[in-house]
Every structure is written in structure tokens, then in C-alpha cells.
């Protein structure tokens, strides 16, 4: 394809705007990181700055001193995120494909049943009762995996919409004429053609698992099963309550602002590391999309 002058100008415009947008997005992260390595008193006296007068790693040292707990929590979160994301995408994909078909009997009812769960919630107390007194998942790894995160009605509807728009129904029909079973159609048409959306959903689900601390907060009290977010959350809150009740422990000095920032940064770090790999998958989505034509 030959690009016209106008198209080239449009591309240039797109690049420039995106560079500006990226700057706006990334700047707060830089500020966050720099303040996490700024000396606490310097920060309080001179204020936040990208070029602080005095650096200090106290906050990271404080976190490091809590030792193996952190590593354990990281490991827990990584495992839960991996398992959870795979299950999540599988369940969503399996329910979204039948719902995307135009002729499935009872489709409206099923769609409605899914939508209804987005609108109405029973509330925390009954959910808690069922998970603890009937299913007994309190203080097990299942508590980090199952409640609220294993499936998302929202994602199911998004994927359904995508499959309906982007996969031509003739493909299904011709496959059926060739005698393919529904599971084969799912495997050989839906999975490859839906790849861009599945990767997207996987990213959403993965981030939700990674960032979740509420399940831990409600269902986990055994500190060896903390997720990283829960552990960091507990650390921040503990400092807050210590000062609030006016009784510091004997071991004294705790960096508070810096620690909050450092904790925020540590929680994000693995995700930042994983980013290049994720984008690779996005690109793959594009090429597959062009293969199908």
C-alpha cells in the first residue's frame, strides 16, 4: 500500500499526541518512585521533587527487614495470579462463545442472568457466610482464588460482544457442514480468532488478581498465606494505627511517607517487568487477525 501524504501526516499527528499522553501517564509514576527514595525529612521540609536534595533507602530497608515474609507473599501472589487468570479466561471464553451465537435457545435468559449479577449484589455479609460456614475456604489458598475473581460477568459480556462482531457466522456454518463438533469449533475457530480479546481479558483478570487485597482482608488471617498486596496493606495500616494510638513500639523510627511510596512501587514492580511480554501478545493478536481474512 502506498501511503498518501495525508495519511503520513495523520501518523505523525498520532505519534506526537501519544508521546504527550504517555508523558502525562508516566510522570506520576516517576514522582512516586523518586519520593520513595527521598529522605523522609527532606521530603517533609522541601516538598516533593523530581530532583530531591537528599536520597535515602530507609523505606526499602524497612521492607527488606521484614525478610522472607515478602518473598513468600510474592510467591503466593504469582501462583494465585497464574492459576486464577487461566481459569478466569477459560470460564469466560466457554460461556461467551455460546452466548455470541444468534440462534441459541434460551440465550436471552442466560444473558439476563449474567447481566443481573452485575447490577445486584447480595452484600458482603451473606457472601462471607457462604464462603466460611458452608464452603469453609477461610484461611485456605482458595480464598484468594475464588471469591469474586474467578469469573466476571462484565468480561463475559465484553467477549460475547467481540465474538459476535468480529467472527463472521459463516465460519461456524461451514465448519458445521464439515462435521466439526462444537468443542472443535471452539478450539479451532473461536480461540484463535478471539485471541486479541482473550489476551485483553487475561490482562484484566491478571491485574485484578495481582491487585486484590480484599479477599485476603476478609478471609485470610494466617500470615503465611498473605498475598503481597495484603501484606503491604497491613504494613501501611499498622504504622497508621501505631501513631494514632500514641504507643509506638520500642524499635522506633519508621519512615511513613517514603514507606507508603516504596510499598506502592514494590507492589507494581513485577507487573512493570512483565509489561514487555504482554505487549508481545498484543502484537501477535494483530498478525493473527490479518491471517484470518
Amino acid at each position: 500500500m502506498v501511503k498518501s501524504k495525508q495519511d503520513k501526516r495523520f501518523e505523525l499527528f498520532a505519534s506526537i499526541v501519544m508521546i504527550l499522553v504517555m508523558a502525562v501517564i508516566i510522570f506520576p509514576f516517576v514522582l512516586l518512585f523518586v519520593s520513595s527514595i527521598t529522605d523522609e525529612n527532606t521530603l517533609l521540609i522541601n516538598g516533593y521533587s523530581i530532583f530531591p536534595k537528599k536520597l535515602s533507602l530507609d523505606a526499602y530497608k524497612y521492607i527488606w527487614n521484614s525478610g522472607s515474609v515478602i518473598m513468600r507473599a510474592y510467591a503466593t501472589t504469582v501462583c494465585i495470579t497464574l492459576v486464577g487468570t487461566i481459569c478466569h479466561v477459560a470460564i469466560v471464553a466457554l460461556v461467551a462463545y455460546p452466548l455470541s451465537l444468534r440462534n441459541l435457545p434460551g440465550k436471552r435468559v442466560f444473558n439476563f442472568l449474567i447481566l443481573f449479577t452485575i447490577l445486584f449484589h447480595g452484600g458482603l455479609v451473606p457472601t462471607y457466610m457462604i464462603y466460611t460456614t458452608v464452603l469453609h475456604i477461610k484461611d485456605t489458598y482458595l480464598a484468594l482464588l475464588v471469591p469474586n475473581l474467578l469469573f466476571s460477568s462484565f468480561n463475559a459480556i465484553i467477549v460475547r460482544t467481540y465474538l459476535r462482531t468480529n467472527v463472521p457466522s459463516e465460519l461456524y456454518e461451514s465448519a458445521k457442514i464439515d462435521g466439526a463438533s462444537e468443542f472443535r469449533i471452539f478450539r479451532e475457530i473461536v480461540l484463535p480468532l478471539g485471541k486479541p480479546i482473550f489476551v485483553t481479558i487475561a490482562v484484566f483478570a491478571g491485574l485484578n488478581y495481582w491487585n486484590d487485597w480484599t479477599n485476603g482482608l476478609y478471609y485470610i488471617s494466617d500470615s503465611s498465606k498473605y498475598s503481597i498486596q495484603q501484606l503491604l496493606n497491613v504494613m501501611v495500616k499498622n504504622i497508621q494505627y501505631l501513631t494514632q494510638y500514641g504507643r509506638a513500639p520500642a524499635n522506633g523510627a519508621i519512615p511513613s511517607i517514603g514507606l507508603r511510596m516504596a510499598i506502592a512501587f514494590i507492589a507494581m514492580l513485577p507487573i512493570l517487568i512483565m509489561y514487555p511480554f504482554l505487549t508481545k501478545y498484543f502484537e501477535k493478536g494483530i498478525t493473527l487477525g490479518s491471517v484470518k481474512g
Partner: protein
Amino acid sequence: MSKNSKPLRLRAQRFKGYLPLYLMMLPAFVYLLINNYWPMSGLVLAFKKYTVQGGIWGSQWVGLRNFQFLFRNNETAVMVRNTLCYNLAFMVINVIVGVFLAILITEIGNKTLRKLAQSSVLLPFVVSIIIVSYMVRAFLDADTGLLNSLIVAWGGKKTSWYDTPGPWPFILTLVNTWKGAGYGCILYISTIMGIDPSLYEVAHLSGASKLQSIRYVTLPYLKPTIITMVLLNMGRIFNSDFGLFFQVPQNSGMIMDVTQTIDTFVYRGLIVQPNIGMTAAASFLQSCIGFALVLAFNAITRKVSRDDALF
């Protein structure tokens, strides 16, 4: 309908054909049953005074008493106005910004830049709203914030931003866009990536400019996703992101006229008197309004373009 008049054997055969599809849906619905529908009995707590001894069904009915606190004060109008206006603004802005960025990103020629742009729009989605509130604080803090440092450096006067209501509608919208637009953007990108490239070629060959092919190919393909997003957001129009309206403004009182939403009102009102019934009542009311709106908009969508309706 004609379905009923068909012979039984045919119907059974037809069902057999669909059986694998129903099986595929089974895990999701089992999960919904456990995680969502079973606890939904808790909705009745909105009309009850909950006690442990009575449990969900045995507790005493109190009629609409749990709902009273939402209406018995002059804050009601303010919090309803704020919740509705912010949500509508967020909905419109997030769609526009999301689509705009998605189209720009897919149009970037340089592959590295495109990759970078794609990952950075999702970056804010990674951080929790509490961390966002630290970031905002780093900018706006009266004594140590970056903004005041700049203002002072340029010879201006310090402003105590957290006590000045004026800029807050703008600040909250900005924060919400910064944090939330990436989510929709990524969805739109994946939809655009799924568009059959031959369509663009056809458009190109028939002499369409870039803008025209966006107008006639890309946007129509994005329409169903956009409609879905809008419909789903309609259902949550009376809910608000508690973190955004409570943590980000640091629970500051002087700006409450522009930051109070239904959720922050409920939270502040029940600190000293946690009450399961009143909490349930507020969320029940929010859900009902959202539900009514979704039903209405879904009905309209069905009339206009049947395929895009949610159910």
C-alpha cells in the same frame, strides 16, 4: 411460537445439538450460582433489622426504615447530583478518550512507539486508587506538593487545594480519566485489531482517506463494544468509586459539596453505627435505579439495533 408445535423427537434432537453449548456454559453459571445468586438472599436485609440470632431470614422486618436515612437530610440533593453528574461525565469522557487513543495507537507507524504507547495506557490501571491518592497528594499538598512549589517558584501564592472546592470537579475528572480511560482503550484496540484488514484495503482502493476509513470502517466496528460499555455503566450510575471520592480528596471537609456521593455519605454516616440493614438498603436502591435504567436503555437498543442489545 412454532417451537411448541414441532414434534417431540425433533425438539429432543435439536436440544442434543445444543447440549455441548450448554455444557460449555455450565462452569460460569455454577460459579454465578455460588458467588452471586446464593448470597443474593442478602437483598432482603435492606428491609430487616439484622441480628445474628435471627440470621438473614429470621431477623425482624422493619419495612422501609433502613431507607429513611438516605432522604432525611438536605444532603440528599447534593449527593444525588454529584453521583449522577460525575458518572455521566466519566462515561462520556472515557468513551471519547478511549476511542480516540485506541485509533491513534493503532495508527502509529513506528512499531516500538506503538508497543510503548499500548503498554503505557494500561499502566494506571495497575495501581490501586489508594496509590493514586498518594500521587495526587504529591501534586496538591499545600506545604509539600509539586504544584504549590511551582506556583511559589513563579512568584504566586500557596493555595490549600484540599480546602478549595472550585477545581475539584476538574481534578476528579482528570484523575478518573487518567486511571480509567486505558481500560476502555485496550478493549477498543483489541476490537480494532480484530477487524478484517481486507476491509481497509477495499476502502483504500476506492480512494478513501485515513479519516474516511476510520469513519466508515473502524467506528462501525467499535459501535457494539461502545454500546455494551455504555449500557453496563448505566447500571452503575448511582454507584461511585469510593476511593476516588473519599481517598483522593483525603476526606477533606471543605470540598465535600463537590465530592460527596451516595457511597461516601453512607460510609460517613455509619462509622459510629455500622448497620448491615442500612448498608444493604443503600446498595439495593442504587441497584434498582441502575437496573431500571439498563432495562430502559436495553429496550431502546433492541428497537434500534437488535443485535447490540444486552439481552
